[in-house]
């Protein structure tokens, strides 16, 4: 779908014949020249035209701008149709407005989101828009100035109808506790246009970086206290410094966009909604360590993310943000986007290097670390998408503003993805050190369908399952590690009391077992043993020594696995054993599943006091295990029953009891 929505003269083109900006002739002040009017020549008309253009990008053509959230999450619930419906409606009415597809703003539960802004009216955000009600929304907003059906407002002006009924965006719970630092452009700019990024203050960080020396850039990042957002929390400046001092030419810098955790999508969201920020961070990182070539290693399954990153790189190259002598600083840098073939282990640094080199993606023993012996044996720095986006923001805004947030040892903000049984799912950016309780109960609104909170899996399949008692833990690298979980990429899978914890542990073990590359023994065989043992417990054949087996094998995997995948794979098992041991014991000793999930441990019976003898259960039973008794009521033959649960769903009185 063509996303070129701004016709006419682009901010990136030469404004008049006097303008001497060309790719062949790079200029130090290229970005500031674009944003703050021409600096190379004095012309009032040119300046005005530029300002007009920037205002048009920000506020839309004719003062009306309609943005449609078209990240993967939005598209999945029909934002594409909504976008076309809006286009059609606008064409029918003969309006002159900008319709801009934007990325996800983190409110995934409310997608598809449409934002309408008109000069003089409050900017209104509509949620769960369908192609059918697009016309009504446009009528209400544009013709009547009525915002009463909006989901939220960005600002209040006091002249729209129904304004007081609708909360401000900052007032809704999902937004109230957030700090929009790195996701500031998400859901606001068109991700496929470098012009929009620049009009919203983009590439100023790069502009500033290229005027500093690489040492000063590293110093700035050091002062900010930024730590790697990929999970381990290694200080970013230290990584850069080691690589900068390492011997060998050329040096490489890699952006790790191989996000694979189930329940984590912050990288996808960032790269889909604001790909140029990531690219800017990558260029800054390359300048700091002296790299001349970079790779963006992106998951092929996340097709939109890969596409947008590729587009961003193309566009940046076209306007001289990549290539030789960038902004006349003498710094050469080029980037290639590599699509991985999609294995979880590719997210591990050394496996990723192997994949880029064209070998089978398997990790290798470290040391030597990639900082000294990386891609093709040369010094290489690998940074996560979010880290690089932070770098770009830090260089633009200065380290002081970044270091305001966070805790003593972990500065800044982090995007967390909340999925599972939470009321509001999506991505929220909060300062590091926010407690898990705040994230789940304040931002995500607690558990849906009135159920009770049971556990939260933090950090994907490599993380840990934490119980209610750990909810007041501040989320930072150290306290999570001490609780047995890891920060990981920052995915929170909320688990309610309808889930069996042994089943949850088996789910995550299944994932790591399938994704293990098979190179080292502990991970390859250990995860299989964990899976087999857990399956045995779930199927009712658990032995008393099984818990010991789980603990021993987990310890061995943690100790002796080659890479972080194997070292962290037993975390879900270990943490559930630590916090929910009684549930395991109920499975093994009493052959009972407290959450009533494990089928082989369930027994269906019919409560004759409640049964009205309608026979629906017998009709629905696929194995004919339900019979009529002499008293006209029904009973279940336990030997024939396959525990499918059809009878309990069919019963109008709830007489079928699960036990």
């Amino acid at each position, binding site marked *: 779908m063509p996303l070129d929505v701004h016709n006419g003269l682009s901010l990136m083109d030469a404004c008049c014949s006097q303008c001497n900006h060309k790719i062949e002739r790079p200029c130090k002040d290229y970005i500031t020249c674009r944003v703050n009017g021409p600096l190379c020549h004095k012309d009032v008309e040119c300046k005005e035209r530029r300002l007009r253009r920037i205002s048009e990008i920000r506020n839309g053509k004719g003062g009306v701008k309609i943005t449609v959230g078209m990240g993967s999450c939005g598209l999945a619930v029909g934002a594409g149709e909504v976008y076309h419906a809006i286009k059609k409606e606008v064409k029918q009415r003969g309006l002159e407005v900008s319709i801009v597809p934007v990325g996800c703003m983190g409110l995934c539960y409310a997608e598809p989101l449409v934002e309408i802004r008109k000069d003089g009216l409050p900017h209104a955000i509509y949620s769960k828009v369908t192609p059918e009600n697009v016309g009504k929304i446009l009528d209400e907003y544009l013709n009547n100035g009525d915002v009463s059906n909006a989901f939220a407002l960005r600002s209040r002006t006091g002249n729209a109808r129904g304004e007081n009924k609708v909360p401000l965006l900052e007032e809704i719970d999902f937004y109230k506790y957030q700090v929009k630092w790195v996701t500031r452009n998400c859901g606001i700019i068109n991700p496929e246009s470098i012009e929009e990024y620049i009009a919203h203050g983009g590439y100023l960080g790069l502009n500033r970086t290229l005027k500093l020396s690489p040492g000063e850039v590293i110093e700035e990042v050091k002062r900010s206290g930024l730590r790697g957002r990929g999970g381990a929390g290694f200080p970013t400046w230290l990584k850069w410094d080691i690589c900068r001092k390492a011997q060998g030419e050329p040096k490489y810098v890699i952006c790790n966009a191989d996000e694979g955790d189930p329940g984590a999508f912050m990288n996808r969201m960032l790269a889909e909604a604001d790909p140029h920020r990531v690219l800017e961070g990558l260029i800054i990182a390359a300048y700091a360590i002296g790299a001349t070539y970079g790779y963006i290693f992106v998951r092929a399954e996340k097709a939109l993310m890969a596409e947008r990153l590729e587009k961003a790189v193309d566009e940046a190259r076209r306007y001289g943000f990549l290539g030789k002598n960038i902004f006349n600083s003498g710094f050469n840098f080029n980037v290639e986007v590599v699509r991985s073939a999609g294995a979880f282990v590719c997210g591990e640094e050394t496996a990723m290097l192997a994949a880029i080199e064209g070998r089978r993606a398997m990790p290798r023993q470290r040391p030597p670390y990639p900082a000294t012996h990386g891609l093709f044996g040369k010094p290489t720095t690998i940074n996560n998408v979010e880290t690089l986006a932070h770098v770009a923001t830090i260089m633009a805004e200065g380290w002081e503003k970044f270091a305001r947030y966070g805790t003593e040892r972990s500065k800044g903000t982090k995007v967390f993805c909340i999925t599972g049984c939470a009321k509001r799912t999506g991505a929220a950016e909060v300062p590091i050190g926010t407690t898990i309780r705040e994230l789940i109960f304040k931002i995500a609104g607690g558990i849906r369908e009135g159920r009770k909170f049971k556990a939260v899996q933090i950090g994907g399949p490599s993380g840990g399952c934490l119980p209610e008692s750990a909810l007041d833990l501040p989320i930072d690298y150290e306290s999570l590690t001490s609780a047995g979980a890891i920060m990981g990429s920052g995915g929170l899978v909320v688990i309610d009391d309808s889930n069996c914890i042994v089943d949850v542990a088996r789910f995550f073990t299944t994932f790591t077992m399938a994704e293990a590359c098979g190179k*080292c*023994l*502990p991970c390859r065989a250990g995860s299989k043993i964990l899976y087999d043992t857990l399956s045995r417990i779930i199927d009712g054949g658990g032995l008393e020594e099984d818990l010991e087996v789980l603990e021993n094998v987990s310890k061995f995997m943690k*100790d*002796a696995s*080659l890479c972080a995948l194997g070292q962290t794979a037993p975390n879900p098992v270990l943490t559930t054993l630590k916090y929910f041991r009684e549930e395991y014991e109920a499975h093994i000793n009493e052959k009972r599943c407290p959450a009533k999930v494990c089928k082989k441990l369930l027994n269906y019976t019919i409560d004759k006091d409640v049964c009205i003898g309608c026979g629906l259960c017998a009709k629905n039973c696929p194995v004919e295990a339900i019979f009529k008794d002499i008293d006209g009521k029904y009973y279940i033959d336990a030997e024939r029953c396959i525990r499918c649960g059809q009878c309990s769903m069919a019963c109008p009185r709830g007489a079928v009891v699960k036990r």
Partner: protein
Amino acid sequence: MVRVIIDGKEATVEDGTTVLEAAKKLGIEIPTLCYFPNVFEEATCRICVVEDKKTGKMIPSCAFPVSEGLNVETNNERVRSDRKLALEVILAIHKIKCQSCPRKGGRCELLVLCKEYGVEGIPVCAECPLHEEDCLLANGEVCLGPLTVAGCDGICMHSNRSCEGCRGPIMRTDVIKEAVKLYSSHGITLENILVKLGRYYSSSPYYDSVVKVIAQFFNKNNKNEWFDEGDE
């Protein structure tokens, strides 16, 4: 040249050598399985792990280059327990068919290590000095070798006596299945075995279940009911 401490002994070795080689220089043996100098040095079996006293991490000695001030212990309790677990995990995925395996006796490195670390699970057949043709079973003697835990170097068979099963039974159905197949092919019946089985096995807590499993497999064998899907 860098200085390293291995098991409390100090050594000066060249930069870039592995911990394994440095230990060898000091006369300290570290067991290995997958390591094959210059051919395969990928550290996949993790038998050679040693403990780094500085970081508290377990490192594979065959692929870990030494660095200045490295202090490792190669044989403390944690290392031994991890190696034991590694062997147990290997055995769990190993296809135990020692009777037909060409690596008998001292040639089986896995057996040697299992004996050293007290890991049970390999049958006496693995270390029986008698070859397949000279196997006592071939003479019709009831030998408990295929069912019994190894570790005795096969001294009975050395002196031409059949195995009495003094080290107890192996609790693995695939091993028992293999043994029953072997017995049947030599015409030895369940009754023949049961006579001998009680003598040492009866002290094992698993005696009843072992007998049950053996009987089960004999039953299946008699009815020709072998189903081999579990036999990779």
